[in-house]
Each structure stands twice: as C-alpha cells, then as structure tokens.
C-alpha cells in the first residue's frame, strides 16, 4: 500500500499541476458602460466607469470624501472613525470587514463597479483578484491637507455632482482660513507631536499628516531641527536629549487606536515621567492629547475640526 501512496500522491499533484497551468476559464464579460481613465495615488492607470453606480469604500477617509463629493456607497468598512452624521447615514449599508482585512468574498458578492482603497499592502494584495473579477480598484494615499481637496474634486467628477464637491471644498478651506486668521500675527508656536508611549515614541516629521498641519498653520515643528528631518519617513525615533534641548512650548500626543483612556494615560504618564519633568511644556501643563481619528489618519472632511482643535492647543490665547 505505501507503494501506491508513494506513487499516487505525486501523480495526483502532477495532474493538478497540469490542470492549473493549462486549464483556462471563461473570460469575464465586461459591461458596455462608458469608461474613463483614472490615475490613483500610486500611479496606476485604471479604467473605471465614467459614472460609477456601485462604489465600495474600504476605509473611513475614502468613504468620507466620496460622500463629501456627493456620492454614495453600497459597501463600507467596519470602522467608527467617521463623523456622527455620516455614521448615521451609512448605518444600514453592508460591511465588508475591517480596513486592514477586507473580506474579498463579500466585496465581490456585492458586485461593485468601483472599489476605493488605500495605498497599503493589505489593499494592494486585493488587486490581482479584483482584476480577475473585472472590478477596478483605486488605491489612494492621503498624506496631507492638499490631497484632501484634490481628492474631493476628483471624486466630484466621478459622482457627477461637481457642485456638491466644490461646496465641500469651499467649506473646508473656509474652516482652515478661519483658523489661520485667528492666529495671524501671533508669535510662532513651537510644538512637538509624539506618537507612541513615554518609553517608546516616535516624533511626527513634517511629512506626516500632523506635521503637515503644523506647517500649514505656520507653527514650528521642533522635530524639524534634527538632521533626520531630511529623511522621507513620516515618524522618527528621535532622542530624548534632542527634544529636551529643543524644549518645545507645547507637546501633543497621539496614541494608536481610538481608546480615550489610553490617550489619557499616555498624557499622565508623560507629565509624571522624570525625564520629561524639566521641559517647559510639562511645567506649563501644555501637554495635550490629539484624537486618533483626526490626526493619525487623514480625517477627510473633518480636517476643519482638526485645524480648529490644533489652533486652540497651539495658541490658547487665540481662543478669545
């Protein structure tokens, strides 16, 4: 009997090999709808319907921006990082899984004609299978403020609701202008944004989203002073001594994850930590936490709220 198995298993596998390599499957029928070419953030040129009717968004930002451009989705990610009113709107739309692990079967079964994802490996991995199924996918990176406006305008063309898109853009720009106006003429604030915990942290560089906002508001990001600022990484593990020397006016904290208690603990730990005691920001109680969904990931249309919050923290006297 072992002889049978010894020959049987390899032969079976060989047959499978033959079938897999030389078998063919019928081609997927493509629809006759009008198409356009869209270049996503990664530089991929994708053929998508000129007016997509069945859109699935795989992450909060894309969902938010698509609605801001006057669109709707038929499938959404399992996330709460959205504004309350948007959450209410999409309550009954089918979920396709968490952003970092979307369920392929669910996506395909909803028969979308466009999928919006992010420039991250877990969405890149979906591309081959979705292509086979004839479903186009766009991978968008939203690294900074400008990209928000740009993306809303692009989505406006897809939804056909260019007016709505323009309105959303205008709203956002207005909110940002208001924030800037409040602080016009004030002394430049010196700030540091940390991500992590008091024992193991990274600083937000200008390329990160939070860093980008700081630059937008004309604040000085202390992390910029380091030589490492010339590198491309958005977060860097800078030395504590460097920070102590730079001595920022205000320290802002982001923890990964949306749990409020964790952020609060982070803030307390930092303020109590002996190594940080000597800094001006700690002494003046100017250590604040930033909400994850507004600063760690791109908040989309809520960037106005983010800016306002930031203004209040950087220039407390500007509140009046």
């Amino acid at each position, binding site marked *: 009997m072992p002889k049978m198995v010894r020959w049987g*298993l390899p032969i079976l596998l060989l047959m499978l090999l033959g079938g897999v390599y030389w078998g063919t499957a*019928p081609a997927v029928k493509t629809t006759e709808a009008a198409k356009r070419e869209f270049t996503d953030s990664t530089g991929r040129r994708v053929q998508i319907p000129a007016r997509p009717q069945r859109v699935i968004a795989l992450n909060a930002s894309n969902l938010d921006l698509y609605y801001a451009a006057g669109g709707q989705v038929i499938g959404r990610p399992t996330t709460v990082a959205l504004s309350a009113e948007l959450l209410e709107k999409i309550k009954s739309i089918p979920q396709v899984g968490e952003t970092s692990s979307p369920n392929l079967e669910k996506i395909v079964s909803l028969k979308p004609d466009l999928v919006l994802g992010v420039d991250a490996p877990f969405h*890149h*991995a979906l591309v081959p299978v979705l292509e086979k199924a004839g479903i186009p996918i766009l991978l968008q990176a939203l690294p900074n403020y400008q990209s928000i406006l740009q993306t809303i305008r692009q989505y406006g063309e897809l939804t056909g609701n260019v007016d709505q898109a323009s309105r959303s853009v205008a709203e956002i720009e207005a909110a940002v202008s208001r924030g800037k106006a409040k602080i016009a003429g004030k002394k430049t604030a010196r700030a540091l944004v940390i991500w992590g915990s008091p024992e193991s942290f990274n600083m937000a560089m200008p390329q990160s989203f939070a860093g980008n906002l700081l630059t937008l508001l004309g604040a000085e990001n202390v992390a910029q002073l380091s030589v490492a600022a010339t590198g491309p990484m958005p977060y860097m*593990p800078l030395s504590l001594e460097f920070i102590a020397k730079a001595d920022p006016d205000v320290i802002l904290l982001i923890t990964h994850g949306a749990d409020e208690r964790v952020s609060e603990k982070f803030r307390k730990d930092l303020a109590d930590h002996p190594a940080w005691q000597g800094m001006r920001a700690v002494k003046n109680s100017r250590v604040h936490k930033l909400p994850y969904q507004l600063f760690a990931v791109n908040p989309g249309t809520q960037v106005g709220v983010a800016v306002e919050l930031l203004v209040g923290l950087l220039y407390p006297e500007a509140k009046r």
Partner: protein
Amino acid sequence: MKTLGIDPRVDLRNWILLGGAGLLLIAVLLGVSTGAVRVDIGEIIDTFRWSADVGENYQIIYNIRIPRVLVGALVGMNLALAGVILQGVLRNPLADPGIIGVTAGAGLAAMAVLILWPEQTFLVPSVAFVGALAATGLVFLLSWQDGINPLRLILAGVAVAAFFGGGMSALMVFHSDKVQGTVNWMAGGFQGRSWEHVRMILPYTVVGVSGAMFCSRYLNLLNLGDEAAKGLGVPVERVRFALIVLAALLAASAVSVAGLLGFVGLIVPHLTRLIIGSDSEYLTPCAAVFGATLVVLADTAARLIFRPVEIPVGVLMAFLGAPFFLYLLRKGVRK
C-alpha cells in the same frame, strides 16, 4: 513466505493513511463551500463544467475560494514535509523550517517590500522565496565543514535568524506607521490568494513530495545515527545535503505564498508520529496529508468564526493546536 506472521501494524497504518486522505477531501469540500457568501453544491459542480453560462457566484467560487483552499492545502503539505525531513536529518525534535533560516529570510525580504515599496506587493512571494533561499544558503555557508554537521547548522540558523530579525525590527522602528501593512503577512494567512499563488507553489510541492516519498528510506536509515547509516552504505553527507535542500525548497515555497505560518512545520510531524509511528515510509505521506488537512480546516474556521472578519490562520492554529497536541502527548497514543 512469511514464517513470522503478518506485521500487525501494517493494516492499521494503511487505514490511517486512507482515513487521512478522506479527511483531506472532506476538508477541501468544506473549505470550498464555506465563506461569507452562501453557495450550494450545485454551484460548485457547475464551476467545473466551464460552460459559457456562468452562475452569479462563479467568480467567488472559482477565483477566490478554490485557489485559497488549494493554496492552504499545498502550504500545509509543504510545511509538514519540510518539518519531517528536518527533524529526521538534523535528529532534533525541535527542528522546523525556521531553523535553517527560511522564515527569517522570507520575513525580512517580504517586510522590506511591504514597507518600502508597497505598490510592488505582488512581488512579495517571489522576493520572499529568494530571501528564504538566500538565508538558507548563508546558513549552509556558515556551517559547512567537510559536510553538514547538524549541530553547527542549527547554531548557524539561530545566528542568521537573529541577524535578519534585527533587520526586521529596524524596519519596524523606522517605519512604525507602515507596520500595520505587514502584520497580516507576518502572521501567515490566505486572504486574497489566487491562482497565481497556486501556480507558484505547486511545482515545488510536486518536486518536494516526490523527493520526500522516495527518500523516506534514507530518513529511516539516518535515524540510526551517522555511523550506523554509513555502515549500511548510505552516503550520509550527500543525502543530508540533498534532503536539507529539498526541505528548504518546500519551506521557502510555502512561506513565500502564505507568509510566516508557524506551528505546522514543528507540530504536525510530531502529531503524525504519535498516531502512525516513526517509520518514514508511512510518516512522510501521512504528515503531508495531515498538514494539508490541518491548514485547510484552520483556514475555514478562521473565515467562519467571526465572519466577515477573518482571523489570521496562524493565530487560530496556535490557539487550538497546541493544547490538542499536549493532550495527545499525555495520552501517549501509539498504534
């Protein structure tokens, strides 16, 4: 003419093998019929008829589920076989594919791509494969001394793994915001696996399985110790080298397609040994079949338990498999 009577174990072992094959078949069918979307047997059968008129779930069955289940089975087979070979050749019950550097090399290579060039994610399997073999080659180079000394190989493997592990940590520290993109691959899983992946791993499975089956006699002889094996005419150095290369190919192809799926290469050989004994002629095919079944069942469960959220397969296997294995150890099952 057997005057000593029929070997009482042969029948039982054959039944166990047959049973294992049957179990694998059931597992595969179960895997293909399970998922976020309901499909029935009729639709599954229709998929194989390649008629021009395809049902609405055709895409899901043909392009998502079947390749996923197949990749799972092949990965399980490859990893289990690699484990059997390495444990036999290195005479170390704790040997698994990671011990020769495969996991470290694949991990570093894949992580580099995922973090630094995420738009080339489709390259990850090939890059991981090359990385795995490069690491194994390094381990060989470091430990070569007129042939392969098992202890030196293991020590070199540990050193290389540590070195590459350091590389991975460095990547994680300096790109902490991108780490999440790598987590799924590092844990090991079959999300999004397609016919491409099947094509990548299948040739190695064919070669590996054939090689392992035909060399099971050598594994039996190597179990007797180097001197006894040499005394019996086994060209020990050459055989050891060839078998380790075979194990490296099996493991590298599996890891490149599934990610760093641990546990299978280490535990499945032991599990199989407890059930069917140390005779490699039976142990090898049985481990292959059991490995495939385990991975397919685990993947199916991983998709099912919290649907539509999928747990990484490696996590599930560790949680369920380790206690089960401990239980078997305590019972000391022997047939």
